[in-house]
């Protein structure tokens, strides 16, 4: 081709021929799945260093897998957070609620009530158990798959559904894609669609808290795929340099849409091991073990609060369903993966643990599931009074121009008038109900 340097180097010399490695997942659609290569550690075997230890002491944990709940459904070892049964039941109820909520909202999207939805099935512990280990006013900077945090912090279901339906009750004024919540009241940062941007922001919030001599810490969540973004690496560097009181949660659910974790570097090492290079504490935890997740997050929170610095936690889990309502995972991965996942299901594991403790039973569980489904159904009905997407009951057109700036400049005033004028032309008799 014209106008470029000669492309081909001296081939056929006695130098070795280079070849490009392109990662490939082990299983594709139709393949039978064998996950025996995944190192499933024995619950209780992992040491628990002192919370204010030197970061390098955690290095072995970044290649390990912290687990607490055993196949015997009992808690084992130094990471057992020793939660009382009431707290465990509360956690289980949050799990059940998120599942019921996800099921209903997914269906709502299929029924055309909104444009989009994302479930977190199989990953509930990574947000709920982690959030429960934080103080309720610790600031969280989530990605889009941490609805569990809002549920754990008691955010109203109706508010969530209003946002998902983008209706006139949505306090974000119907501006954001469904599930991109924001609740300052719940110390929950506004979710961005642009991946990993929240990670340096969490570090910045934590730095501010340190500058002001506050006692609150920050935590962020990011998908394993998104750790490839530069933002994540800036976050790690700043966290390390300023010893920021922050927790960087990497949710390794194995997939980033159709790309397996190998495209974020998982063929080489763990995501937790990133911590070692930055000189910050790191823990790799069984993300489907609610007790282990709670314990790791609490360890990191205590460390941050003691001015001992940031922690990177890799939550090793599995995205049991599609990426979103726009995705069909049967196109790119084996449907057997989810069933074969060696770390089980977090809801089931917590339920069995409570039963093993003699603090729970199948009847109560079934009743709880039913109650959650009913509560979600009622909230849905309530939210639907405010409208569903595309059916008229949205915020007034003028709101489209608010919050671009604190005050409306002249051009937005003009454009706002234009929008309202167009509405009158389109609907001379008023907007159909």
């Amino acid at each position, binding site marked *: 081709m014209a106008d470029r340097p000669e492309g081909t180097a001296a081939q056929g010399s006695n130098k070795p021929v280079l070849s490009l490695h392109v990662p490939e997942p082990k299983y594709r659609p139709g393949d039978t799945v064998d996950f025996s290569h995944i190192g499933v550690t024995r619950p209780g075997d992992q040491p628990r260093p002192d919370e204010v230890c030197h970061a390098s002491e955690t290095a072995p944990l970044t290649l390990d897998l912290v687990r607490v709940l055993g196949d015997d459904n009992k808690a084992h070892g130094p990471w057992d957070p020793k939660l009382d049964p009431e707290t465990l039941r509360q956690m289980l109820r949050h799990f059940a609620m998120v599942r019921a909520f996800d099921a209903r909202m997914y269906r709502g999207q299929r029924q055309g009530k909104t444009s989009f939805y994302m479930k977190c099935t199989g990953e509930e512990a990574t947000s709920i158990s982690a959030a429960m280990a934080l103080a309720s006013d610790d600031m969280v900077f989530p990605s889009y798959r941490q609805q569990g945090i809002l549920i754990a912090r008691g955010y109203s279901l109706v508010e969530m559904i209003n946002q998902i339906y983008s209706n006139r009750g949505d306090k974000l004024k119907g501006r954001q894609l469904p599930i991109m919540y924001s609740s300052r009241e719940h110390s929950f940062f506004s979710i961005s669609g642009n991946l990993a941007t929240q990670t340096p922001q969490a570090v910045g919030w934590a730095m501010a808290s340190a500058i002001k001599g506050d006692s609150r810490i920050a935590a962020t969540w990011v998908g394993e795929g998104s750790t490839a973004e530069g933002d994540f690496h800036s976050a790690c560097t700043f966290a390390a340099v300023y010893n920021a009181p922050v927790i960087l949660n990497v949710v390794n659910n194995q997939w980033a849409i159709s790309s397996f974790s190998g495209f974020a570097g998982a063929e080489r090492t763990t995501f937790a091991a990133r911590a070692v290079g930055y000189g910050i504490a790191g823990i790799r935890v069984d993300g489907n073990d609610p007790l282990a997740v709670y314990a790791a997050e609490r360890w990191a929170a205590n460390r941050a609060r003691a001015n001992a610095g940031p922690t990177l936690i890799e939550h090793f889990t599995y995205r049991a369903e599609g990426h979103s309502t726009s995705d069909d995972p049967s196109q790119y991965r084996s449907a057997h993966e989810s069933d074969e996942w060696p770390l089980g299901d977090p809801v089931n594991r917590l339920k069995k643990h409570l039963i093993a403790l003699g603090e729970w039973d199948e009847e109560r569980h079934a009743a709880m599931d039913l109650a959650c489904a009913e509560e979600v159904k009622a909230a849905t009905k309530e939210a639907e009074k405010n409208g569903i997407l595309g059916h008229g009951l949205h915020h007034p057109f003028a709101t489209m121009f608010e919050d671009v700036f604190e005050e409306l400049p002249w051009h937005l005033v003009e*454009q706002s008038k234009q929008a309202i004028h167009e509405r009158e032309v389109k609907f001379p008799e008023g907007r159909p109900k």
Partner: protein
Amino acid sequence: MSVQETASSDPLVTEETRRLNMIEAINEALDIMLARDPDVIIMGEDVGYFGGVFRATAGLQEKHGKTRVFDTPISECGIIGVAVGMGAYGLRPVPEIQFADYIYPGLDQLISEAARLRYRSAGEYIAPMTVRSPFGGGIFGGQTHSQSPEAIFAHVSGLKTVIPSTPHDAKGLLIAAIEDNDPVIFFEPKRIYNGPFSGYYDKPVEPWKKHRDSKVPEGYYKIPLGKARIVQEGEAMTVLTYGTMVHVAEAVCAAKGVDAEILDLRTLVPLDIEAIEKSVKKTGRCLIVHEATRTAGFGAELSALVTERCFYHLEAPVDRVTGFDTPYPHSLEWAYFPGPVRIGEAIDKLLKD
């Protein structure tokens, strides 16, 4: 002169034409270029095995191999940066950015590096990449799946910006972009991937297969960068537009029975200034239509050019119809979108003046 005539009188179009949608046409262009030029490689998030979230690269990895078509880490900075390096070696990378809204982490590599490499090395190194990316709204994608950031790129010296509006053009322009030795931003209007969009959102979508511009010749052909397309000839006014808005403008002019001359610019940089001047001098009136936000949008550049060059032929001030200067809202998408009412009123005003 109808579009079919333009296509069939094109000397490069020799073989039979079939009807394709825009995704199929893009896929075919990529397939052809992978086969013709061993230096072409395609990479991006989810483009390999899966074939892209919009299926634009479906089947290409299987056909051309994993080192020609492959997935990348989720790092737009990395994607563009390695494309610069590959170009320095002599490859001709065609990276995909999954949505234009996600191109920003790659801007330093694009603006400071790819766009300036030829200049700063006095031609020693070039960046012959074509960055494909779906853009634009009308799909209820909210503010991070709807943006039209073309003006940002048009503003950067050293970048070419191409925006097709039909399957026929998408294929020919993409082949030209890939063969071009300068970095090209190739924005694909995702709203019209599967069918042209009239702007009347409550009407059923017409599939491409029924549209005259979905006749796509087999094999290799190019549409030169910098040549506008006359969508329809007319006397009453000139409409300068591109992408999805070509179809909206056409539908509105048809509904209003306006004898407008509609120019699909096809490339913003380089711009077909000759075609613009010729048309505006003929009609004496000029309306610019784009979906992107208004302030410092590409319409401002067009308006300035038309005023500078055609001032004494103008019967009325140049006008712009654009998206509003807000992020793309989710629920109020159709209030935001520069649809038939906004365009229609601008046409009335322009004709009245």
